[in-house]
């Protein structure tokens, strides 16, 4: 063996390592002259992604100091979290309002108070429920990109078929249940073919039913209230459906539904006549079943609780600046542009959503294709608009509530048992979480 051959392979690896090292240096070199480039990670694809791209392009054209590079990233909240912990986060990330508390508690996001003060952005500019979604522990951590509210969507043709007045949607929960029962159709084997309403469809807000009955999931400080009488009442109502229709029958019927974003969607394929859905539903109907006869109305309230009229789940996509971002100031410039009336209305029109801002132009109303946009917008201003609980342990809490929802759906537990179990499990977790958070804060303060 000759000397050169001996060293060929190790030498090759050294060359590879050197190349990697050198290319890292080149990439990390200071920005070339010209606009500051900032990276922006966003979750949306399809027409919603295109809408955001349009706003980014508009911003890039509107000035020449900053260039925003939009990158579509799936599972964006997890990837932003990991990139932040590795010290290489994007400058702006689009996450969900439900993630904000966890991000703040994990020190993954920069506060925006100073930037907002400088830019003159304050609570008066937003509908309270959305402003509330971006603030936590007394500070501002994000600003909305697009918001949403939910309402009852109902199939008017199916109502007419069973002799119901399509202009008189259910106003109380009791009416909703009664109308739902009238719409159920079964085949000769007893299998459900059509249902009026199922609390498990689409299954995105299984945790939220308590709010429609006046419940809360925690007291805002240190107590989990999953088993409050209101929440138990809500779950009793949820369980009344599998009790009436048969748990296995409901399960099997539901397993025949296609994906949400498909013509086989339960509402679009006329398998379920009434669903709780968001402002975005209009787009999917016009995409997959434009002939569907439908209307929207505020979700009903319990007959004995008229004060709960116009309860809605109000959530938002939000923009954050992760801790460790290289260009926070430029990042905020972009966020500010998105939150200007012009930027926001372009985005919300193209994504067919309502605006989170208090100031909405006449043009926006005129051009908005959703015939119920004023309903969704007014729901956002409702005193009964509720957002996701701002809890650092929300991911775990909601998984627990989902499980309870499934257990009562299969009639394996009574609502009280299921919610007692959730409370018993989550209270110690919250105690521990708050204790560890306090210890960390003390340690940081003493440093």
């Amino acid at each position, binding site marked *: 063996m000759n000397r050169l051959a001996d060293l060929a392979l190790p030498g090759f690896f050294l060359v590879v390592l050197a190349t990697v090292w050198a290319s890292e240096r080149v990439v990390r070199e200071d920005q070339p002259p010209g606009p500051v480039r900032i990276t922006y990670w966003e979750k949306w694809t399809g027409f919603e992604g295109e809408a955001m791209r349009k706003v980014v392009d508009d911003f890039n054209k509107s000035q020449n100091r900053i260039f925003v590079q939009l990158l579509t990233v799936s599972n964006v909240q997890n990837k932003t979290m990991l990139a932040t912990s590795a010290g290489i986060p994007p400058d702006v990330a689009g996450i969900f309002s439900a993630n904000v508390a966890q991000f703040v508690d994990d020190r993954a996001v920069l506060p925006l108070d100073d930037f907002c003060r400088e830019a003159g952005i304050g609570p008066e500019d937003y509908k309270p429920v959305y402003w509330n979604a971006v603030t936590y522990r007394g500070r501002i951590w994000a600003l909305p990109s697009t918001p949403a509210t939910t309402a009852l969507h109902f199939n008017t043709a199916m109502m007419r078929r069973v002799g119901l007045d399509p202009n008189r949607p259910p106003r109380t929960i009791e009416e909703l249940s009664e109308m739902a029962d009238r719409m159920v159709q079964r085949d000769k084997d007893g299998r459900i073919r059509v249902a009026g309403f199922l609390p498990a469809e689409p299954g995105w807000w299984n945790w939220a039913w308590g709010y429609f009955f006046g419940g809360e999931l925690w007291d805002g400080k240190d107590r989990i209230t999953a088993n409050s009488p209101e929440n138990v009442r809500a779950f009793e109502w949820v369980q009344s459906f599998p009790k009436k229709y048969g748990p296995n029958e409901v399960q*099997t019927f539901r*397993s025949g539904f296609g994906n949400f974003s498909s013509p086989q969607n339960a509402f679009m394929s006329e398998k379920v006549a009434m669903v709780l859905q968001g402002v975005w539903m209009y787009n999917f109907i016009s995409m997959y079943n434009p002939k569907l006869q439908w209307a929207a109305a505020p979700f009903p309230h319990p007959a004995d609780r008229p004060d709960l009229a116009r309860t809605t789940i109000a959530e938002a996509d939000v923009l954050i600046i992760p801790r460790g971002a290289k260009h926070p100031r430029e990042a905020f410039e972009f966020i500010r542009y998105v939150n200007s009336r012009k930027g926001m209305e372009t985005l919300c029109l193209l994504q067919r959503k309502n605006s989170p801002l208090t100031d909405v132009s006449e043009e926006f109303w005129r051009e908005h294709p959703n015939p119920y946009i004023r309903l969704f917008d007014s729901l956002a201003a409702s005193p009964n608009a509720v957002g996701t609980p701002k809890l650092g342990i929300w991911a*775990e809490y909601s*998984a627990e509530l989902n499980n309870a929802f499934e257990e009562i759906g299969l009639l394996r537990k009574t609502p009280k048992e299921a919610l007692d179990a959730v409370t018993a499990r989550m209270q110690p977790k919250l105690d521990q979480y708050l204790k560890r958070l306090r*210890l960390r804060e003390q340690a940081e303060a003493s440093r």
Partner: protein
Amino acid sequence: MSKRKQNLVGYLFALPWFIGFSVFLAYPLVASIYFSFCDYSVLKKPVFIGLDNYRELFADEVFWITVKNTAIYAAISLPAGMVMALGLAMLLNAKVPGTTFFRTVFFLPSLVPMVSLAVLWLWILNGEHGVLNEVLRMVGIRGPNWLGDPAWSKPALVVLGVWGVGNAVLIYLAGLQDVPTSLVEAAELDGASPWQKTRHVTIPMISPVILFNLIMGIIGTLQVFTVPYVMFPGGSPARSTYFYAMYLFDNAFLYNKMGYASALAWVIFAIILVLTGIQFLLARKWVHYEAGR
């Protein structure tokens, strides 16, 4: 080349592997032991909390649910898979025309990526429109809602696990072809029936292969993740398919409880280690090596 130089070259050749091993395996391994004693969310600095994670874990109801689910799954799917694989391998070892074709056919499912496999089976097992229930309907049986009924979700996964026995079949087949024909012929001359030949010649001869498949099977079934994660989000229905590795993943990447997840990882490691150790002890009784012991 001098001895020293030869060693040096050897080490240099091994160096890339060694670097990779230390950076990507050894360090994370050691670090996760430490993290399992910490409150750690990846973003915040780990804070040492002693045995708290382990204490919490053993009192954690969901931990025990996942242990139970995983144990049940392993207890059914492991023997079923092994018997199936061995049976298939023996059939494929028969000297009849077309075996190469069938060998390929039975191996094919193992080449399908797990996620596609899961999506495919979602359609086969669908309670309302699934292929399986359609076939059952033709013979007058009303099939269960495989994916939505807690009583049927685990059996559904077992069926799915058996579908992927191709790898094990291949290993058995290699073992079977190593069984010396002289021994089989000798048994034949002594008047052994086909069953006796299998029981007293073939199985002892391939026992090291069975041991290998058994241990790999234990490791594989106790860490089952991809297919249930895709098919049963959150371990639905009612946590009947919530397996150990899924709970570990959720804690690490959904709840950001990396310390707790590390503790979970070390507990499952200890369980697998003990089970493997037991297998090796028992193996002395039933595994025969050609070299003898």
